[in-house]
């Protein structure tokens, strides 16, 4: 039985491919396009096969099958390797239940807390980043000269060539109790004892915001840039105050870019590992850290898989909800 559940997972993608192939064929015939050429006619046999193999390897072996296996794994009990595939290896919901209920019977406050905290904090950081980035994106897109914009662009990109870990490290140097900021605060006499920025999660929020500034600013910039300057002028001529211009003209126009930036930042925050690991307080538990621990400390893969799946579903659900609220399609968001 347990072996077959993994086998089934192996078959699913081929069913998907068959459906995809039938769909593509039927639509090609339906379109009645007299320019239509068959796939191999258009690409040549060799190239055609190479393309298909590459895409098939990627989509099947690197995307679809790993996801399916992870999901299947999450419905299995935690067993030592020799017992895998044995009679005890049956499908079960135990891993999912364990997020809510402890083995002792109590509520799993720690993990549920981590889950809720991760999601809420990610939303907060997303909102914060939007607030920080919007003015600059607007300035770059509408007010700045081409020369200045290129300079600003360069200034934005260069820090991002430094990887996430080192950026987190740099913030830690700043925010630590012996860090520059505490040194400065104590020197001016604002505080006697160092403030524990890392312990009270200020470091975490700053780290997340800092890590994904660029992810927010570029979609915003791209969206606002294509807005016709005359529209803003027209609104100004009509006597609209500046906040009305943004609320009525710029933001509705830039909606796809805003949705895109917010989606990406939220997803990255919720799935972030480095910032919570290095900047989070000792009592703070990020949901990805919980997953990380299941893999590396408890060696409990099924449970880690189940938690991963829950995180994925929650993120997708939230993003879909946001896109619904914004009334933008997924296609507009990822470009």
């Amino acid at each position, binding site marked *: 039985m347990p072996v077959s559940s993994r086998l089934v997972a192996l078959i699913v993608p081929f069913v998907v491919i068959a459906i995809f192939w039938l769909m593509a064929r039927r639509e090609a015939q339906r*379109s*009645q*396009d*007299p*320019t239509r050429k068959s796939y191999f*006619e258009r690409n040549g046999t060799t190239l055609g096969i190479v393309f298909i193999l590459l895409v098939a390897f990627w989509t099947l072996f690197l995307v679809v099958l790993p996801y399916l296996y992870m999901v299947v794994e999450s419905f299995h009990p935690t067993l030592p390797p020799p017992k895998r595939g044995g009679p005890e290896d049956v499908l079960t919901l135990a891993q999912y239940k364990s997020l809510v209920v402890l083995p002792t019977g109590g509520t799993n406050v720690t993990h549920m807390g981590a889950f809720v905290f991760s999601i809420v904090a990610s939303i907060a950081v997303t909102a914060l980043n939007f607030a920080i980035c919007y003015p600059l994106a607007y300035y770059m897109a509408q007010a700045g000269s081409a020369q200045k914009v290129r300079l600003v662009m360069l200034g934005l990109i260069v820090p991002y060539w430094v990887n996430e870990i080192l950026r987190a490290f740099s913030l830690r140097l700043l925010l630590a109790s012996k860090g520059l900021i505490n040194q400065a605060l104590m020197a001016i006499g604002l505080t006697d004892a160092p403030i524990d920025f890392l312990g009270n999660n200020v470091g975490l929020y700053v780290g997340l915001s800092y890590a994904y500034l660029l992810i927010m600013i570029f979609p915003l910039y791209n969206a606002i840039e294509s807005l016709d300057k005359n529209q803003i002028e027209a609104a100004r001529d009509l006597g609209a105050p500046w906040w009305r211009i943004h609320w009525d003209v710029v933001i509705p126009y830039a909606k796809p870019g805003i949705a895109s930036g917010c989606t990406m930042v939220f997803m990255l925050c919720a799935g972030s590992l480095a910032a919570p690991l290095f900047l989070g307080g000792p009592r703070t538990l990020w949901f990805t850290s919980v997953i990380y621990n299941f893999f590396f400390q408890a060696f409990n893969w099924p449970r880690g898989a189940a938690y991963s799946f829950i995180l994925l579903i929650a993120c997708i659900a939230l993003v879909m909800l946001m896109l619904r609220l914004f009334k933008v399609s997924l296609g507009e968001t990822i470009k």
Partner: protein
Amino acid sequence: MSAGVELDHVTVRFGDFTAVDSATLDIRGGEFFSFLGPSGCGKTTILRTVSGFLNPSEGAVRIGGKDMAGIGPNKRPTALIFQNLALFPLMSVAENITYGLRVQGIDKATRQKKADELLALIALKGQGNKLVSELSGGQKQRVAIARALCVQPKVLLLDEPLSALDLKLRQHMRNELRTIQRMVGITFIYITHDQGEALTMSDRIAVMSDGVIQQVGDGKAVYDEPATAFVASFVGENNPFAGTVVQADPSFALVETQFGRLLGRNPHGLEQGARAILFVRPESFQLAAGAAETTLSSTVKSVAFEGNMTHVFLEGAGKKDITVTVGRHAATRIPEQGETAAISYDPALGLALPEGKLARE
């Protein structure tokens, strides 16, 4: 080497839309043949069907007597000059010209020789190493022609290649195209919406509208003996007067219009009671009264002096506009704005055709 092109009841459909409806036509080898029509009439579709980018939904295309069904564009003895020229921006001028040889696997030295030959022909000698982006509009045009001729096609297809040029250059290129065609002696099929281009260059013209070939003939025939109301109104200026035939014989018909009864030739043998449009070209009118059934009364709306001729725009019964063109030599006094004027024409220059769609102004 040239080859004729035969269209045998060619129909092309895009979904529900019929772009070309049963086109049947025989283009002779070595002919300069034009398809003339407004945009969306199906002329480009025909061209793409001949070159092999489109498969006809029905019917057959034959080149040099050979059925082209199942033969791709890269295997046909045709070369196409695109509307935007489609020169390869990343290749030099010489590489562009000899691309057709490169794909045949012909060696570099031969290609270089051929490139020099063709560069001389198009007056771009020694400029083979330039980039396409360094050329002027006319030069690009000529490179596109050389690139097409390089593969020694039997039929050259041209899709409005002059439309991007300015007027002076366009007229200059017309002569050049005609000269090249005579020199290489292959069949040219030319697509245009510009009647001037079609009339000056072509041996024969096919006038198209809404996917249907309206008439095939030389320039004179298309102008003087239009077969349908569409051709009459599309080729050259024309004044249409719609009405009903009240009296007819094999050579003439009398049409009851809002200006009264007007007389014109009757090549289609229209019979009494038939709906008809009587066409009189602006240059066929004279600014004087004539016989009752060829005279119209009207008011002058405006006068436009154009050097060698003068256009008089008149307004007749029911606010109908009439254009009259008077040559310079005419001793006639040009009436002034607001004057009433009687105008008339020679009945042999009036033409009664069955009612049909007119070309949009």
